């Protein structure tokens, strides 16, 4: 019976866990409950990925109403893979959260923090699994509102202004998406994604549909922090509590990329998106600009979390570059990089959270000589950082390799050279942190700084080990990515 209701359970369990968490009162109990729920959701998403890889895409009708009249959840390989990523990051980050949240969030707000986390998890999972366009908007707002609340719980007063700016920009993005959905509904009369895909080609040349596409793409690009629309990301990630940054950096923008995939390839279709609307050159230019500008700005940051946040903007550029190639290989590279980036960035932000836990600051100048006092944490940081650069034997290398081969397959030599050059920029900003940690003498009048507690090190090493493991044995992510890319492009399985 569970197998038949998997999609609904995946959403309903964290949704019903959130008000229960609110009732639980004390912080410790709330943490234990949300960890339990995160692990349960991870198990369910794993089951769902296995089911999809074996028997192919399947649907679930909410409320028993058949599509296109009711809301249906549609699970194919792309969906199930992204769900697995979100659930996995949640499951890994929760055990870490106990110590980190104790340090960074005031005690009387812990219950509300975990409630907001469960709601955010529900929202992100809901966006990924649904097959109804308006449902995407609803879950998008659920996850966004709880993110704004979580980000505002950071210690620094700048967290408040960062959250406010994210709120303004995020709501504008979501409202643009709403306008796009409204115009699509007006022209076709349906909200179901599969039905939209069937009915849109008939009305393709009309202005409302083109306007709908434009509004939708801009709204989604705001949410995924594509180059000129990324201004909310550095501050929001830098000043939020470390757990929140690690969770959001690995999941929130990736889910928005999934929405882009779904609407560009499945709903609107390739021929409309890339032939009628010149999306390809736009995405290409913006993603390249994003990669270079963001990597360059990252080099000059003094706050390590802000540096990593700018690096995230650059990585989104790589992901969107894969999309602009419009080939199975390009999409495979893009989805693969979603996976590897989630793992690596998660590890990097968890490492910084551990440093903040012990040192109380994430300024590069305060990290001098920290590697002697926190060897394990900084070693994990180095390994994940090598993945970010794209050194062989890490996951990052695999996704960059696939990206470059996909670019060469299209025959765009200059772009491949640019991608390689940008990896050099990554070397610079990772080196800045590594140099300060390992090669600069620390100030010895610090408070006694020890290694981070085990509850923080274990999740950190799970993610770091994953970034290396999936650089060596790429079978699972590669298989899922290729399968997903093929389904998106409408070829083969």
């Amino acid at each position, binding site marked *: 019976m569970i197998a038949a209701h998997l999609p609904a359970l995946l959403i309903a369990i964290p949704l019903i866990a959130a008000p229960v968490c609110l009732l639980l009162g004390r912080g410790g109990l709330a943490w234990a409950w949300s960890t339990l729920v995160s692990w349960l959701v991870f198990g369910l998403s794993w089951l769902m990925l296995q089911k999809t890889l074996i028997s192919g895409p399947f649907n679930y009708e909410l409320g028993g109403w058949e599509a296109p009249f009711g809301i249906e959840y549609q699970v194919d390989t792309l969906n199930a893979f992204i769900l697995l990523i979100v659930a996995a990051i949640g499951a890994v980050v929760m055990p870490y959260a106990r110590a980190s949240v104790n340090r960074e969030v005031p005690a009387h707000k812990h219950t509300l923090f975990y409630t907001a986390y469960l709601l955010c998890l529900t929202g992100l999972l809901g966006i990924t699994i649904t097959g109804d366009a308006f449902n995407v908007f609803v879950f998008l*707002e659920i996850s966004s509102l709880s993110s704004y609340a979580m980000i505002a719980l950071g210690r620094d007063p700048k967290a408040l202004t960062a959250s406010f700016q994210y*709120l303004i920009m995020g709501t504008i993005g979501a409202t643009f998406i709403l306008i796009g959905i409204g115009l699509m*509904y007006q022209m076709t009369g349906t909200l179901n994604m599969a039905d939209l895909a069937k009915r849109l080609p008939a009305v393709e040349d009309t202005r409302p549909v083109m306007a709908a596409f434009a509004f939708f793409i801009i709204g989604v690009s705001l949410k995924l922090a594509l180059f000129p629309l990324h201004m909310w990301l550095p501050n929001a990630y830098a000043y939020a509590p470390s757990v929140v940054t690690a969770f959001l950096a690995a999941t929130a923008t990736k889910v928005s990329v999934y929405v882009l995939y779904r609407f560009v390839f499945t709903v609107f279709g390739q021929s409309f998106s890339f032939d009628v609307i010149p999306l390809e050159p736009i995405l290409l230019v913006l993603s390249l600009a994003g990669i270079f500008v963001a990597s360059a700005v990252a080099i000059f940051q003094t706050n390590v979390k802000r540096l990593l946040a700018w690096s995230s903007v650059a990585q989104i550029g790589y992901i969107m570059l894969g999309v602009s190639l419009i080939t199975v290989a390009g999409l495979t590279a893009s989805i693969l990089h979603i996976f590897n980036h989630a793992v690596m960035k998660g590890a990097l932000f968890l490492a910084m959270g551990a440093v903040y836990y012990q040192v109380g600051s994430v300024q590069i100048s305060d990290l001098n000589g920290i590697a002697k006092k926190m060897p394990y944490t900084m070693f994990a940081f180095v390994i994940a950082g090598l993945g970010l650069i794209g050194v062989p034997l890490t996951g990052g290398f695999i996704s960059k390799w696939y990206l470059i081969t996909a670019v060469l397959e299209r025959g765009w030599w200059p772009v491949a050279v640019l991608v390689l050059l940008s990896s050099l920029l990554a070397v610079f900003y990772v080196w800045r942190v590594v140099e300060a940690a390992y090669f600069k003498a620390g100030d010895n009048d610090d408070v006694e700084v020890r290694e981070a507690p085990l509850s923080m090190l274990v999740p950190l090493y799970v993610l770091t080990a994953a970034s290396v493991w999936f650089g060596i044995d790429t079978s699972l992510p590669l298989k899922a990515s290729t399968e997903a890319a093929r389904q998106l492009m409408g070829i083969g399985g």
Partner: protein
Amino acid sequence: MVWLGHFNYWIVIFLMMAGFYTVIARGNLIKKIVGLNIFQTSVFLLYITMGKVKGGTAPIVPEGGGEGLAYSNPIPHVLILTAIVVGVATTSLGLALIVRIREAYGTIEEDEIQEIEDKSS
């Protein structure tokens, strides 16, 4: 006079641009939230306008059956209800953040806040 028949849509565009301009151009945080609200209201108007059927009545089956009755599409109304709730939640969250910012910085003008942040970082 086709453009007079599209009166609703002109209002939608006017409100949308007014709201959007307010969000971008005003430095006072509360004015930004107000602008956001106006922007969202224009979208609600867009949806409701598209749901109206000429000569249509409420989508409820009256006594004696409703054969041949024209009714306005209820789905945009349902969508807008959800969007209004989302708008209320966003507004309250934004205002709560403004209260906290006022307590932390002493001001709610964006440029003054930027000054204080640049000095302290």
